[in-house]
């Protein structure tokens, strides 16, 4: 037993390094997509202290809107632009109809409101788009669909071109977000609101404008995530459950940390894949990805309740 836990997995890794690379690559692709979803959560939480339960359904809604618009005969990239317009309209509507009337209410009320938004988007989405699985317009968007075959150490490494594209686009989006948040006036406003609402309001930062902006950015992230996941296995409401994988990422990385979301996502993506392949499948019958990330996050919380990169909050009693 000890051999199976401590020796054999590492021996297997050394015996088939090409396979280990494949495992790490698959983990990286999953991880960067987890990180993207987690970023959507973090942005909204930082600026408004709202835990946005609707982030997962926003991924589905954005992807379905894109596919639905294209199905009407609209060219792919115009469909992307129109989808962004829809996500902007959604952000404005959420701010006006849901968030603005709830300013000053306890956090839990705002959280419950996002559950309401989730249910509304599920119902509305199913009425508008139907529940059938749809094909993502991968080729129409110019995303390459072939695979790159490499032979490291005489083995085989298969890299899907759409996965490579997803990783590159996600990385570019993360860099763009970091630049936006750190180098622009509006980005600093978002961070200021996250640090201290009262102080930010007192220097003239508009709460409404920032909220619309962060929900719109979360919408953009949702669209990119929806395209990437949808290209892998189609677009359906099943995509929503992938968003729950972002919860342990947030627990691990901290709810307020953009760096935490990125590193947490990558860590969970790769570690859960390594654990599943080298320990979960041989020793536990597989399907450990369902719980591994949560257990890992719980272990981290035992030692760092604020997550790896979260801010330590001390409240006086």
């Amino acid at each position, binding site marked *: 037993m000890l051999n199976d836990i401590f020796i054999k997995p590492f021996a297997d890794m050394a015996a*088939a390094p090409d*396979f280990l690379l*494949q*495992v790490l690559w*698959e983990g990286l*692709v*999953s991880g960067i997509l987890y990180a993207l979803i987690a970023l959507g959560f973090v942005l909204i939480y930082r600026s408004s202290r709202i835990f946005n339960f609707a982030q997962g359904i926003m991924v589905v809604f954005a992807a379905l809107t894109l596919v639905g618009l294209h199905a009407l005969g609209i060219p792919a990239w115009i469909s992307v632009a129109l989808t962004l317009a829809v996500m902007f309209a959604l952000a404005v509507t959420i701010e006006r109809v849901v968030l603005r009337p709830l300013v000053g209410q306890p956090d839990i009320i705002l959280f419950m409101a996002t559950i309401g938004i989730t249910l509304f988007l*599920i119902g509305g989405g*199913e009425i508008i788009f*139907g*529940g*059938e*699985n749809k*094909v993502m317009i991968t080729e129409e968007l110019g995303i390459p669909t072939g*695979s790159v075959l490499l032979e490291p150490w005489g083995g085989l490494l*298969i890299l*899907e071109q759409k996965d490579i594209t997803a990783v590159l686009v996600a990385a570019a989006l993360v860099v763009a977000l970091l630049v936006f948040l750190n180098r622009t006036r509006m980005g600093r406003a978002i961070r200021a609101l996250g640090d201290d609402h009262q102080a930010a309001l007192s220097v003239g930062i508009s709460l409404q404008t920032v909220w619309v902006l962060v929900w719109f950015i979360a919408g953009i992230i949702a669209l990119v995530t929806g395209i990437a*996941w949808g290209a*892998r*296995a*189609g677009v*359906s*409401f*099943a*995509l*929503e*459950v*992938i968003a*729950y*994988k972002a919860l342990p990422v947030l627990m691990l990385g901290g709810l307020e940390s953009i760096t935490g979301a990125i590193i947490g996502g990558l860590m969970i993506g790769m570690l859960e*894949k390594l654990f*599943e*392949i080298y320990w*979960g*499948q041989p020793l536990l*019958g*597989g*399907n450990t*990805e*369902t719980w591994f990330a949560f257990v890992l996050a719980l272990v981290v919380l035992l030692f760092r309740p604020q997550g790896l990169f979260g801010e330590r909050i001390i409240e006086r009693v």
Partner: protein
Amino acid sequence: MITLKRLGTAVAMTALLATGALAEGLYAPNLAYRTGPFAATGIPLMNGQKDYMELLNARDGGIGGILIDFDECETGYSTEKGVECYEKTKGQAIVTQPWSTGITLQVLPKTNVDQIPILAPGYGFSPMADGKVFQWAFNIPLSYWDGASILLKYLEEQGDLSGKKIAFLHLDHPFGKEPLPFMEQEAEKKGFELLPIPVGLKEMQNQSAQWLQIRRERPDYVIMWGWGAMNAGAITEAVKTKFPMENMLGVWWAGHDADLKLVGEDGRGYKSVSWSFPNPDAPIMADLKTHVVDPGKTQSDAEEMSGVFYSRGLVISMILGEGIRVAQEHAGTPEITPADLRWGLENLDITEARLEELGMTGMVPPFKTSCANHTGHSGGWILEWDGAKFVKATNLIMPDAEAIAPLEAQAAKDYAEANAPWPANDACQM
């Protein structure tokens, strides 16, 4: 006071309307799932079921002169919601159609008390075939163990299974685990290695770990017990992993045109066992166009109606319709009770001649039920994806009854003992 009066009037009106609605026909609720992660599988099936009943109501005035009140209660494939739907509809229902193995297992003991037939065509608990033990449950025309047996027989036709490795990729859910006892028995008997690979509900669209395991283990065949979004996820991963498609086979719920259209030509060679097949030239399709499609009563479209799942929905409602007809003839009245319907479902004899009368030739194999045989064990075809649609790849293959029957009897006995006191149908002398 006025408000109270209004409220009272509203309640009375609602009750009256509800009674009126139910009095319009035989209440046959369907615990449907048109929403949620499994909707892609559910929608064409539900549309087929509903359209068949619409057709009978519009063309024939129902069955035996009484309309069928075919109502849907949405479960989203959730077991909890399914049980709620069962409780909500059971009062007036002549049948319950639970539409998930999880829901079926939950309501199975309840139907014994409520005395309502469970109609679970091609799903549910395989030992329900034993009508003496499961007197209210029907999984016509094939059980999951039948399906697994047909797939193994087909593979044996390709070559001896001894020494081969078969990966069993399944949803980590009661449905996905259902064939495991039979597969394990057959692995021991036939000498192949069975490699069960579970797919969690949250991992349906991200099966890279499962397919990495398949790449590492190099199985000769992959048998997929998938439902909903799991099918598309698995097939796209199989293409990506370059697993030979001709060595990948699925249960009948993993043979959905829409899932294969995601990969198109790359999916050529993939196979699925099926007890139903679309026949666009069948007279029933023309009748559907006249009485259901043209008057705008369908939620389906031409593409979906030409697919395997819509066609299967029609067959499922045909089974219920025939059960009602046989029950009416036996009871001597169109207004049958759930107990009458149970008799009807136990005395189905769907021959080629009857299928021709129904305008459904070639859409389902002939089968016959009895008080002891609640499945019918019709046999199934292996369908193959040709890059654009499913085509029949084999003639009818019958399940291995000798291998299944003892396991069924033992599992039924174990279930009855675990749920004692469990009423058996001692009157059945077959």
